[in-house]
């Protein structure tokens, strides 16, 4: 949808699209077993296409098509969002964003980065806690110093791809402030329980840490480093918004086509002004969703200090407006848009899920008021 892509970016986009359409058509997603995760081999092949390398500098084994990794990642997220793809795109890239941001300021995680870039390993951010709203810097899970390392106690939930992850990036309270730890799923004391997810293609779980011992090298960066958590949040939000934009493009296209093909009282429903005006509003909001998502991606790309504002702007706007568009597309489709066999609900599930996670639009609006020094 971005009209100004380079030829390399267009190739990258087309390759991702082909690969997704072939391996995970919507019909396969509709039939995904609630218990099953994504196909690990599929993800490894995605990694070969560069899906995990974009935020990682070349010296750590990464690289991106245009040299602007966040923008390329947003482009990929649009493609995968248009297909409601499964897989840990958000989970793994968010963890990579944190590992790269913390690189050089604490224990070395180059090996983990390498395994994630190759697609051999999958990582996810364990940040929410049961029953809590979004508050990444106020973890209840504790990491207490113990025998040259730490002992982790607490529960995280709504952890994306928890059942498939090899590594958890755990945000925890230490005596020195909030810190993050990279914890292998196989560590004794770590247990995962499946949680029901609205999104058919994306699964979540609760992860319990019962006296989990990790050594100091598990720490990512330094305690109190809020800017690493902020970076992870920003990357997660850009991926969310871009995914939703990709889905909206597809649904809007599908719905305008429907309106042209569907006749009632001898006229296409696209000829009814009440619908035409709603399409015009939707088209406007669609453009606005793309504009704000692109602006957020650029700001995160530049890593500018002011990136929080455009990112929260995008989540605030896209989070709610996407649902208004999707629900009106359901309405225009009529009853068929409420059936399991129609594709619409796959997009609605993804957008509703993305709206709720990593801060709701309401959370981000309050953050914008904070940022405006109100």
């Amino acid at each position: 949808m971005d009209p100004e892509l380079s030829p390399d970016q267009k190739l990258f986009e087309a390759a991702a699209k082909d690969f997704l359409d072939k391996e995970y058509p919507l019909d396969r997603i509709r039939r995904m077993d609630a218990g099953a995760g994504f196909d690990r081999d599929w993800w490894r092949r995605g990694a070969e296409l560069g899906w995990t390398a974009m935020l990682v500098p070349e010296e750590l084994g990464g690289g991106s098509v245009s040299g602007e990794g966040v923008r390329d990642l947003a482009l990929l997220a649009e493609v995968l969002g248009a297909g409601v793809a499964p897989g840990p795109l958000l989970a793994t890239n968010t963890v990579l964003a944190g590992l790269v941001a913390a690189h050089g300021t604490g224990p070395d995680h180059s090996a983990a980065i390498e395994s994630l870039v190759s697609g051999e390993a999958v990582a996810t951010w364990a940040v929410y806690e049961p029953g809590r709203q979004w508050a990444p810097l106020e973890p209840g899970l504790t990491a207490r110093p113990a025998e040259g390392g730490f002992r982790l106690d607490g529960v995280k939930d709504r952890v994306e791809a928890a059942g498939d992850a090899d590594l958890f990036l755990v945000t925890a309270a230490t005596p020195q402030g909030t810190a993050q730890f990279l914890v292998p799923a196989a560590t004794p004391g770590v247990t995962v329980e499946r949680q029901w997810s609205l999104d058919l293609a994306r699964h979540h779980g609760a992860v319990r840490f019962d006296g989990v011992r990790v050594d100091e090298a598990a720490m990512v960066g330094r305690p109190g480093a809020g800017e690493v958590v902020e970076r992870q949040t920003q990357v997660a939000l850009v991926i969310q918004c871009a995914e939703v934009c990709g889905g909206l493009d597809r649904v809007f296209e599908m719905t305008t086509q429907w309106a042209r093909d569907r006749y009632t009282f001898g006229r296409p429903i696209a000829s009814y002004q009440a619908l035409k005006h709603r399409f015009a509003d939707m088209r406007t909001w669609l453009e606005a969703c793309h504009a704000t998502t692109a602006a957020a991606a650029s700001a995160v790309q530049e890593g500018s200090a002011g990136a929080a504002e455009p990112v929260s702007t995008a989540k605030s706007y896209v989070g709610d407006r996407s649902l208004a568009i999707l629900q009106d597309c359901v309405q225009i489709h009529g009853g068929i848009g409420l059936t399991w066999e129609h594709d619409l609900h796959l997009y609605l599930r993804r957008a509703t899920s993305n709206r709720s996670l990593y801060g709701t639009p309401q959370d981000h609006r309050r953050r914008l008021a904070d940022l405006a020094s109100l």
Partner: protein
Amino acid sequence: MTDGTTESVESFRLRARAWLAANMPRAEESAPAPGDELEAWHRARELQRKLYEGGFAGICYPAEYGGLGLTPAHQRAFTEEADGYEMPLLLNIPTLSICLPTILDMGSEEHKREHIGAVLRGEEVLVQFLSEPSGGSDLAGLLTRAELDGDTWILNGAKTWSSSAYAGDYALCLARTDPTVPKHHGLTMFLMPTKGEGITMNRVAMVDGTAEFCEEFFDNVRLPASAVVGEVNGGWAVATRQLYHERTAMGGGSPYVSGRGFAPSRKLPTPIDVARAAGRAGDPEVRELIGEWLATSTVSGQTAARVTRAIAGGHLPPAAASLMRLMGAEAMRLERDVAMRVAGACAAVAAGDEPGVLGEAGIGYLMRQGSSLGGGSVEMSRNIVSERLLGMPREYAADRGVPFNQVRRGRA
């Protein structure tokens, strides 16, 4: 009452009260199956049979066809007494309040004798084959055709959105019998068995996992001439009557029902349930959202009551029923929105491996438009309000007065 006088409402009420207490199960003691499972239908037939045997079935249906031949006042008294008892609510819509009244109004003597008693005895369930996949809001533009082969009608085509059709025995089916005249003039209504030869029926799975609706495919289905309800090519008059009964039933005004209310195929948590489950009842923003929902939901009920009264009193035309339909849909959309927003960060992932209250808020949100589509889209209601209530110019209909086989049709 066989002596020819009508029992007083009060006497009937007292008799009903005693009989109900002695014979019918209390609602709170029964845990009914969801309305889209066959088990619930067996139970409803059983309860209907009890009513029949107790002499309380078909209160407003004529005695000659197996009813009691009493007045709507008797019916209301019974309904009031029946509150709190398990009743065969599944039979209310469409069997008792839509299909059977249509047969009573427009069917042949044979139809009435054959079906009214059977329904009242709990032996028969009636459903509707009206909407079609190509149809949308334009019911009269349907494509299913019925052609005469000697004395036999041969039906071919497809129907959809047939509510509870999987549980039905007979269906009122509207089909095109003359495509050479404008659309309303070439339709005929048939009363057909739902499980006859040539009929394939599937249940339509909805996004929330329910499957209340069915779709049917007709491949040379053969019906005798006696299956026609009303006149050949006079089907639109029958359908109009049927739609009138449907609106009355949906508005809660039918005198032909057994007990009050509907049997929901899925019960969703309210926004208050959601706020409690999410532990957010103390959040002022959540409280404001909930207050907005409470207000709108109350206003929707107040509006329905006012409009119903005004129509009954002749102060508003029947088309004003669309006002309550629009307000009801708006309140329902808001309910789903508020539940989703109140669930907040918990709307998309449940605490455990079942949806639970918060996940149900998410699932309910997927069905948000249900109330704006079911029973005619809100867009049609807005047309009705602006054209019939406010007298604004009618939308241009490209098929008005055009022979049906010359009307343009789309691909969807």
